[in-house]
């Protein structure tokens, strides 16, 4: 664990951050507006990030990763989101809800087949839990895996699945009821994307995150072998909830990065825009907003790094991750809104990243646990409810 009394990053973490920052500014920033406008998934850029090592930051070296730890992982996702949230969620979700469950619950064979190429950036993965009928209530899932001739046959539909239908997508972890053996219990299965009956629908038209891949998935007699089960049969909810804890640190990091980017845009504009004979930054109404945002972002960043440091140290993270994600995502939404407000009319025009950041921010209080659900999670950790 990074024992950092100054709460500063280590030299190595800073070096990783600098590389990702330089990459994001040089290779992503110039294209982000176009990808957003045309809803393009930037396959080549994701591949390049893989070559750079960004897909395996926290995974052990023996599984193709960098072994740089959860804080470094958060820093990488944060830096990407400072420039482009779509790229950040592609990288973040791939690591936290596709790679991590395989690391934690997979057999050696599953790790070799799915995790090693994921960590090396050769393919990406998805995790499908949410259904059209509901997301927050994980245990109400209706997708079914039926036992048949030593195989599992999946039927049902999943909603809002990130990374499920790109050219790089190789597998999707699916929560399903495994009735034959586990009664009505949930299990998680790894489904290769090429399996007949694995049917990604066309991408949603989303408010934001235009350059990330989000689809409804249909399973129509989709047959996977016995060894596709990830983790203990009937314990899929545990796999999912564990993955979510880590995923929430990722969303918190994305929130910090988006908020930081928005703050930088707002500061630059406030220093340069003249009204009533002076830069608007001189107006207390404006610089107080910026000072407030700065304060909130610092707090969000520390909560996020702390949750990541706990994860790195192998400590329980359910509460810390929920606290970080709840706080950081709400800061991100506020930062995006204040940034737009400070830009006045120009903030409403799709000629700068300002409206994109505004549209991208909102999902942060929804995905991987809505703010309401996170408060419930935190209250449970506080022993206020059973």
């Amino acid at each position, binding site marked *: 664990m990074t024992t950092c009394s100054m709460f500063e990053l280590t*030299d*190595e973490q800073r*070096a*990783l951050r600098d*590389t*990702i920052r*330089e*990459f994001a500014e*040089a290779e992503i920033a110039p294209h982000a507006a176009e990808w957003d406008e045309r809803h393009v998934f930037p396959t080549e850029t994701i591949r390049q990030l893989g*070559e*750079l*090592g*960004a897909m395996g*930051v926290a995974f052990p*070296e023996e599984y193709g990763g*960098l*072994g*740089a730890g959860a804080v470094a992982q958060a820093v*990488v996702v944060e830096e990407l989101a400072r420039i482009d949230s779509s790229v950040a969620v592609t990288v973040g979700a791939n690591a936290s809800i596709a790679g991590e469950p395989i690391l934690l619950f997979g057999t050696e064979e599953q790790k070799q087949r799915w995790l090693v190429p994921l960590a090396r950036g050769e393919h990406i993965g998805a995790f499908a839990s949410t259904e059209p009928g509901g997301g927050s209530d994980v245990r109400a899932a209706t997708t079914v895996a039926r036992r048949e001739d030593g195989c599992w046959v999946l039927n049902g539909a999943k909603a809002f699945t990130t990374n499920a239908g790109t050219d790089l997508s190789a597998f999707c972890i699916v929560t399903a009821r495994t009735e034959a053996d586990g009664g009505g219990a949930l299990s998680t299965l790894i489904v290769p994307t090429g399996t007949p009956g694995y049917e990604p629908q066309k991408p949603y038209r989303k408010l934001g995150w235009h350059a990330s891949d989000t689809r409804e998935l249909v399973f129509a007699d989709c047959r996977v072998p016995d060894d596709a089960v990830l983790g203990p049969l009937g314990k899929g909810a545990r796999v999912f909830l564990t993955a979510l804890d880590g995923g929430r640190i990722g969303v918190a990091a994305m929130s910090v990065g988006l908020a930081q980017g928005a703050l930088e845009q707002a500061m630059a504009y406030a220093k340069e825009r*003249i009204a009533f004979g002076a830069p608007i930054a001189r107006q207390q109404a404006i610089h107080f907003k910026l000072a407030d945002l700065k304060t909130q972002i610092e707090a969000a960043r520390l909560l996020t790094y702390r949750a990541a440091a706990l994860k790195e140290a192998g400590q329980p993270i359910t509460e810390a991750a929920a606290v970080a994600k709840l706080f950081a995502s709400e800061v991100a939404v506020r930062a995006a809104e204040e940034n737009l407000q400070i830009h006045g009319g120009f903030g409403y025009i799709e000629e700068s990243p300002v409206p994109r950041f505004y549209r991208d921010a909102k999902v942060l209080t929804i995905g991987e646990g809505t703010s309401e659900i996170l408060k419930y999670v935190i209250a449970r950790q506080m022993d206020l409810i059973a």
Partner: protein
Amino acid sequence: MALTIAVLIKQVPDMGTVKIDRATGRPSFGGQQVVSSYDEIAVEEAIRLKEAHGGEVVVLCAGGPSAKDAITRSLAMGADRGVHLALADPNAADTLTVAGVLAAQLRALSPSPDVVLAGQASDDYATGQVGAQVAELLGWPHLSAVTDVAVADGELTVERDTEDGKQVCAVAPPVVLLALTGLNEPRLPSLKGIMAAKRKPVEAVTPPAPPAEDRVNWDDPYVPERGAAGVIVQDVPPAEAAERLVAWLREQRLV
């Protein structure tokens, strides 16, 4: 032909973050310390030559404790090992002293380098003297302003910028080459490279103390006085702007 390549790098303040203190007129170097930009081009060229022909890249940096970061960055880009020459402040010594320290270390390297690469000049003091002095001390030829290097049959073909165009030279190792913009675009160290860097060896060497006499003295850097500030008339109707300008010109007794 496998090449042993030594690269001389200097750590300098990031010129993009240097701020000028308006009150004292002095620059403040509070920002990050980086590898001087031409030196980074030299590192990149060394790595490319190694990738194409095999061999080893050794990075030498004379500087205080933070200079280790400059070496780490080069190792993260792909250099194989580093030598950190402890020199509290390389700018406190004159260039010939620094060149002497570097040349002595180059002589001690094993195997002896075929090519020594360095930047044409440093971002901070920009004397452009150290590379040439090192070559003279070693008794090797040097080529400055290098914009292309090709290796074939044990010989280097080097293109360099001259005042009125390009010059192409054939040279046999050992040789000192001074890199200029245009030679290459230095790569970003990959995340894998950064993690690998900490396992690469860095030798710490304490060179003999530099001579006490000051052969060269530098004044503190300063920012030249600004000329008189102009007057900007903005966001007023043209007729009023014209009136204000004329009034100002009269006031200044310029008309």
